[in-house]
């Protein structure tokens, strides 16, 4: 069963080949068996998952239908789940039980999906390897010495290892797409504003966006049908009709214009990754697409601008963790000042503290124009680059990451880690939809192909990704250690 995509499981559930209770039990058993090593889950909800599975089966017996009814899934631990621990990968929220559900969580509940648990992540989504989690690193299912990517590493590893059928993630600078690439699955970041941020713990408010991590573009379309939409509780959620993303999956790609940014095939890209992507592009030519080189001249500035905007917003977003109303408070504070400083220093990890300080510095008196305002201007240049590119092409394709998953501990230098996101970060600054799908393998490790669409072109991006997956089987590859069923 676990090799089936959500679309296939949905058929199996509908036909009665399997019940949600049986399916949920399969995943819970696998979590029990594999999670101790993989560390993909922070919290497992055995009981409530079985309750939800029984409810889904009962609903189906009552004649209810729905593509996600009874499908076992996982939520990144950045989403607030009422009555369930919500840690954001941090000590400071180690004992936080959310008093409400995120809108995304609510939507999946309404669709009848089963929540197996909450997945591990870089602390407050700050990281590209899942090594900054207070709950320890997640391992890559393809090679346990390697990272799964981050920050949605737990979700990516859980899907890749077959510990859930699908999972939610969030992407602020590549946090869905890079772990999807490293773990050989499909990860989709929608346009900014397409999915509600209510209940999704903020890292950088103008960049954060929730999206699916799953086994195929078709699954991503099914998840997006549930996730997307206007939310009156989120001022930045967009009032724009939601399409049925599955209906356009099989649109023809004849005449599709694909842009290949020179800047994404330059210095720093591993030769094997480059070759894999260029081979994959040939599949599109077979489908009638034309390929042309384009320029994103300011792409090289995206990491710099991002490391001003994201830390600046984060420095304010994380001020609420002060030990007053919820979360961790240090032992025996001497006075208020001591409580603040010790609570926050003991509660946050090094990377989070570093980014808070960088953001605080960038906003402080005398530096605002040189840093924050400058970064906003670079952001405009980056957005303009994309606008010009989309005048010429329909989609921009390249590698998700310069190389395959690296080894745990290999990137101890923060700047080296930041440069991991060189191909994905500009997309967040511009607010565009983008997907990473498996494009090939090198040395037993998956390679992600990155595809960026124009504003709110979700349906087109999913269509283009799906057509590739109809021609190839890379997305069907599973890590050997997790494929035996017993």
């Amino acid at each position, binding site marked *: 069963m676990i090799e089936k995509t959500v679309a296939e499981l949905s058929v199996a559930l509908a036909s009665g080949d399997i019940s949600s209770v049986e399916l949920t039990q399969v995943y819970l058993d696998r979590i029990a068996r594999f999670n101790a090593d993989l560390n993909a889950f922070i919290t497992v909800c055995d009981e409530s998952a079985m309750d939800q599975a029984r409810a889904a089966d009962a609903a189906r017996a009552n004649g209810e239908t729905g593509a996600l009814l009874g499908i076992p899934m996982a939520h990144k631990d950045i989403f607030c789940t009422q009555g369930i621990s919500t840690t954001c990968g941090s000590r400071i929220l180690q004992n936080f039980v959310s008093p409400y559900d995120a809108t995304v969580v609510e939507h999946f509940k309404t669709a009848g999906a089963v929540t197996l648990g909450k997945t591990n992540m870089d602390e407050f989504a700050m990281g590209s390897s899942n090594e900054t989690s207070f709950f320890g690193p997640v391992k890559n299912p393809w090679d346990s010495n390697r990272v799964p990517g981050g920050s949605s590493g737990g979700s990516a590893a859980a899907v890749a290892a077959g510990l859930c059928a699908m999972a939610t993630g969030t992407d602020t600078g590549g946090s869905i797409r890079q772990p999807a690439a490293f773990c050989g699955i499909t990860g989709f970041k929608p346009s900014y504003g397409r999915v509600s941020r209510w209940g999704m713990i903020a890292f950088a408010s103008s960049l954060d966006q929730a999206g699916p991590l799953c086994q195929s573009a078709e699954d991503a379309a099914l998840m997006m049908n549930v996730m997307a939409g206007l939310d009156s509780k*989120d001022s930045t959620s967009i009032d724009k009709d939601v399409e049925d993303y599955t209906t356009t999956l099989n649109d023809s790609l004849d005449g599709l214009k694909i842009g290949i940014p020179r800047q994404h095939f330059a210095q720093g890209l591993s030769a094997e990754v480059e070759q894999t992507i260029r081979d994959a592009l040939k599949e599109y030519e077979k489908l009638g697409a034309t390929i042309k080189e384009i320029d994103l001249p300011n792409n090289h500035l995206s990491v710099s601008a991002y490391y001003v905007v994201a830390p600046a917003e984060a420095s304010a977003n994380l*001020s*609420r963790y002060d030990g007053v109303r919820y979360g961790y408070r240090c032992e025996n504070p001497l006075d*208020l000042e001591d409580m603040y400083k010790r609570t926050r220093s003991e509660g946050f990890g090094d990377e989070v503290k570093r980014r808070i300080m960088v953001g605080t510095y960038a906003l*402080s*008196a005398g530096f605002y124009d040189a840093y924050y305002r400058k970064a906003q201007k670079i952001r405009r240049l980056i957005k303009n680059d994309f606008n010009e590119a989309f005048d010429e092409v329909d989609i921009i394709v390249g590698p998700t990451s310069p190389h395959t998953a690296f080894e745990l501990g290999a990137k101890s230098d923060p700047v080296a880690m930041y440069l991991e996101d060189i191909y994905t970060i500009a997309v967040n600054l511009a607010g565009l939809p983008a997907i990473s799908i498996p494009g090939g393998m090198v040395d037993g490790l998956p390679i992600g192909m990155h595809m960026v669409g124009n504003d709110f072109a979700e349906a087109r991006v999913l269509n283009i990704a799906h057509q590739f997956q109809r021609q190839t089987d890379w997305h069907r590859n599973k890590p050997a250690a997790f494929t035996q069923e017993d």
Partner: protein
Amino acid sequence: MEWETVIGLEVHVQLSTKSKLFSGSATQFGADPNTQANIYDLAMPGTLPVLNADALRMAVRFGVAIGAEIGRRSVFDRKNYFYPDLPKGYQVSQLDYPIVGKGSLTVTLDDGSEKAIGVTRAHMEEDAGKSLHEDYQGMTSIDLNRAGTPLLEIVSEPDIRSAREAVAYLKKLHSIIRYLDISDAIMAQGSMRCDANVSIRPRGETELSTRTEIKNINSFRFVEKAINYEVQRQQDVIEDGGRIVQETRLYDADKDETRSMRSKEVANDYRYFPEPDLLPIVIDEAYIADIRARLPELPDAKKARFCAEYKLGEYDAGVLVSSRELAEYFEIVASGSGDPKLAANWVTGELQGLLNKHNLEVSDSPIQADRLGTLIARIKDETISGKIAKTIFETMLEDSSGVDAIIESKGLKQVTDSFAIEKIVDEVIASNPNQVQQYKEGKQQVISFLVGQAMKLSQRKANPGQVNVLLKEKLK
């Protein structure tokens, strides 16, 4: 040396919305602690703000009322600082693009002259919660009911030159806000709060000198006292060869002094930046036109109309329009009485005296406007005299029946029947031969003695004008 005082005021007004600026929590004053603080107000992770339409409307209403520029594209910013009554660790406020830009207010000074005082800007922001310093085993306790209540911060230009002017400006602001019905603006409850920036400079100097900011002033009277204290303090410091330090000072009403707030923070660095959870507010002409069309008549316009329409003096008109309720009360009295000038005298005289004595608001007056109108109408139609009216006014405090019923039941009706008056006049002439003789010899002023005697005889019910005329006729 002769000193000039320079004052700028920052006034915070709680907008009287039902719910908070960015959440659906109630804003009721005086609720049990933390019963009006929901997950957004408590800054629970993942919560987000959505702007209250009425808070925006009220802010724009104020801007339009003072003829200010309205920010067509207005932006919220985060102001970052840590304090336990500030749950998010930042206050959502407006820095570069406030909702209301430059405008001005005209105030009437003590000498009756008028002065325009500039308003630099007004912006929307969230109120903080309250830190209560009652002792909980050495801990400070926090009530977040107030956190997120919408505030309009109104910043004046440093145009104010004395404590009296500051009070006049504040009262005018208060009056406009009450007219607009956008805030209770009760200083004692904190729904209107005032910080004063005060500095002094040698008269003739045009540069601004170092100022101090006085906080914690919670009544009009204390505004005057706090500023006067601070001005004197600054003069003393400078005349003793010292220098004024830029600092925040708290006003202590009990001791009537300001004192420096000791603070470890060398300088605040609020790290303002645009609030990314909110988008720019864009306001079009139609929105402003609609607000303008629904604006009530404001104090200045009302005053001008009272002067023109009712032929009132500047001073009386000014008093009557100082509050919307008083002006409305007056207009009912004026129309009921048929004599606006007399109505104005009664409202500013007897009625205000009564209200002050019993510490009542005009809306709670035991003598309703329509009754007072009738009372004055009875003076006008000569049913009663002005003197009798004052007696009836007193009676009306306890007796809620109609004015005419009171007049009737107490037999206070003025005698205007000329036959009855003639009888009285004859009696007075007969019993005061000496005075009659004096009058006939040319001592004209004796007539008032005779009128007085007639009034006495009639138990003050005779119409004095009539008595006068009749007496003079009979003594020809």
